[in-house]
């Protein structure tokens, strides 16, 4: 009981730190740019994290269960290619969305099959499929671009549902509520934690570990397909380089949100706060014309620091304890 209380306090503390960091970024953005604090800019800023957040949610579940998927951005590129060729063939927007989701689920299932049936470690399997999926995108499209999207398709990435709430933002909110309920309120969620904490113990207590892992990979693929619809619609074009490097940002969001790379720990509110924090931070940097490569450098430093700080403090504490013991 004490331990659960301790973990709850700790999670609460982590999420409050993220909330405070978001406030700081908001204040700094407001002070450094006169254009930041108005409703329209803030609504624009949400596009900076909606698509990544959508993929980060199932990725968080996957990582809590102890796996990882490096191929998400490559899946997005492949889904976009499918939509581009569908559009060339004159498909309506709804068929394009279906095609993207189908390709995404297919790719995710392929990852899940490699990890559960072929027993390939998730890291190697998804590094391989990342190269495979992105490579197919390059092979099919080369240095070309597909741009002939039908009328109405632009709504997915550019449309607003109500006032300043874009379709992307509404989808993200719905997905976050669903994931949070699934992870924190249902048996399925408890089992996901159990699998990540100790997959042998989970298997021996009767959880279909591989079934869960497979479906989490498929769900991550599906979310990548949905994110690809939104991004492709927002850009109105498909290139093989679509979403290049997004795997770094998506994994950073999940880890920044407090999910342990070793599995078994993390919360959906944390991941959502991390997505908002990172989105606002890169939006602010973008307002000051910081080039993308420097932004990913800052994200990289952030990623390492976030993981390092708790490790360093616990090591320092252990060191202090050991010196006290000796004296």
């Amino acid at each position, binding site marked *: 009981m004490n331990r659960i209380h301790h973990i709850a306090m700790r999670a609460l503390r982590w999420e409050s730190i993220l909330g405070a960091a978001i406030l700081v970024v908001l204040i700094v953005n407001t002070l450094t740019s006169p254009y930041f604090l108005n409703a329209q800019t803030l609504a624009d800023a949400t596009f900076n994290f909606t698509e990544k957040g959508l993929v980060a949610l199932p990725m968080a579940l996957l990582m809590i269960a*102890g*796996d*990882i998927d490096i191929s998400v951005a490559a899946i997005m590129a492949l889904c976009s290619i499918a939509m581009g060729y569908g559009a060339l063939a004159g498909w309506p927007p709804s068929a394009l969305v279906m095609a993207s989701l189908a390709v995404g689920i297919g790719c995710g299932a392929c990852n899940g099959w*490699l990890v559960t049936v*072929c*027993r*390939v*470690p*998730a*890291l*190697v*399997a998804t*590094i*391989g*499929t*990342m*190269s*495979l*999926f*992105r*490579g*197919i995108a*390059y*092979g099919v499209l*080369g*240095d070309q671009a597909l741009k002939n999207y039908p009328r109405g398709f632009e709504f997915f990435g550019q449309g607003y549902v109500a006032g300043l709430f874009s379709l992307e933002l509404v989808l993200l909110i719905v997905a976050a509520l669903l994931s949070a309920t699934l992870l924190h309120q249902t048996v399925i969620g408890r089992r996901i934690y159990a699998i990540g904490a*100790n*997959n*042998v113990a989970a298997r021996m207590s009767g959880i279909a570990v591989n079934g869960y892992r497979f479906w989490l990979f498929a769900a991550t693929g599906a979310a990548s397909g949905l994110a690809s619809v939104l991004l492709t619609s927002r850009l109105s074009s498909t290139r093989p380089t679509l979403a290049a490097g997004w795997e*770094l940002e998506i*994994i950073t969001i999940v*880890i920044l949100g407090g999910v342990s*790379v*070793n*599995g078994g720990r993390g919360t959906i509110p944390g991941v959502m706060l991390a997505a908002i924090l990172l989105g606002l931070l890169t939006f602010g940097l973008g307002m000051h014309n910081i*080039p993308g*490569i*420097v932004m*990913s*450098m*800052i*994200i*990289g*430093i952030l*990623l*390492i620091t976030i*993981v*390092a700080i708790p*490790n*360093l403090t616990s*090591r320092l504490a252990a060191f202090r304890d050991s010196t006290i013991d000796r004296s």
Partner: protein
Amino acid sequence: MPPQPPEPMRLPNRIPGRESALAAVIVVMVAALGLRWPQFATLSSLRDVLDDTAILILLALGQMLVIVTRCIDLSVAANVALSGMIVAQLEQSHPSLPILVLMIFGMLAGSVFGAVNGLLVWLVRVPSIVATLGTMAMFRGIVYLISAGRWINSDQLSPQFQQEIRDTWLGLSMLSWLAIAGVALIALLLRYTNAGRRLYLAGGNPAAAAYVGVQVGRSQFNAFVLCGMLAGLCGYLWVARFAVAYTDIASGFELQVIAACVIGGVSIRGGSGTVAGVLLGCVFLGIVRNALPLVGISPFWQMAVNGLVIVGAAMLNEQASAEQPRRILEPDAK
């Protein structure tokens, strides 16, 4: 000699058939290509393949050391770009420096960057995938910052800087000789030195390693530094060979490096992998790369072929290791 552990460790040379099978596949591939396109199986063409694969071989050797200790280094290609840029800038500002000095400087720079990874993994206990994913972005960012996003082109580099590695000796380029020397040194290190054996022990069974007094973190650090040193050397080689240094050189090359290791039978779960396997894995990829245009497949498909080969090889690796007895309570490696 420390006493033998009660349960024999999974040592790298447990699967002797693996390297010979891969070698056979390579011979069959070259023979088949040679029958259809006789110019491919000539000595000079194969020499070009070796020259073309030399950098991959050196990087894959370093990566193998890291993977053997149960880690992974995603930042090798970024390290190549950063060390390469530093060497190119040094060459630009001090054109009179001998090539050997530049090469050593590149290796030193690369070792420092490798040590950053190693320290994060050893002392800060950051999982290697997180640490190197972060440093990958950092190193590229630093290249951009120190070069202000500009390119250093061949006309800004001395002809000697670009020529040295192309000089031939006994029919092979200096680049090829460097790769051969790297293979020999790493093979000796792994087989005959304590530090080398410790890498296998640290990766094969970290708990047992700790019991016999081997510091697992320290071995991982050593592996990262060596991997970084080889990446630094390759930084110079890459800039000299392709006669250009900019932010995106070797972009995505870490995937090919890891692919070569996986094809060569290095287990991502640590503790196993051989120099011969990695060398054959590199040669395999090199032949595929050089054969694709011959067969008439667009180079745009190279990446997909690599991915397919990684996935296929990883599946074969798992089948091979599934046949060995496994401890029931051993959790799956991630």
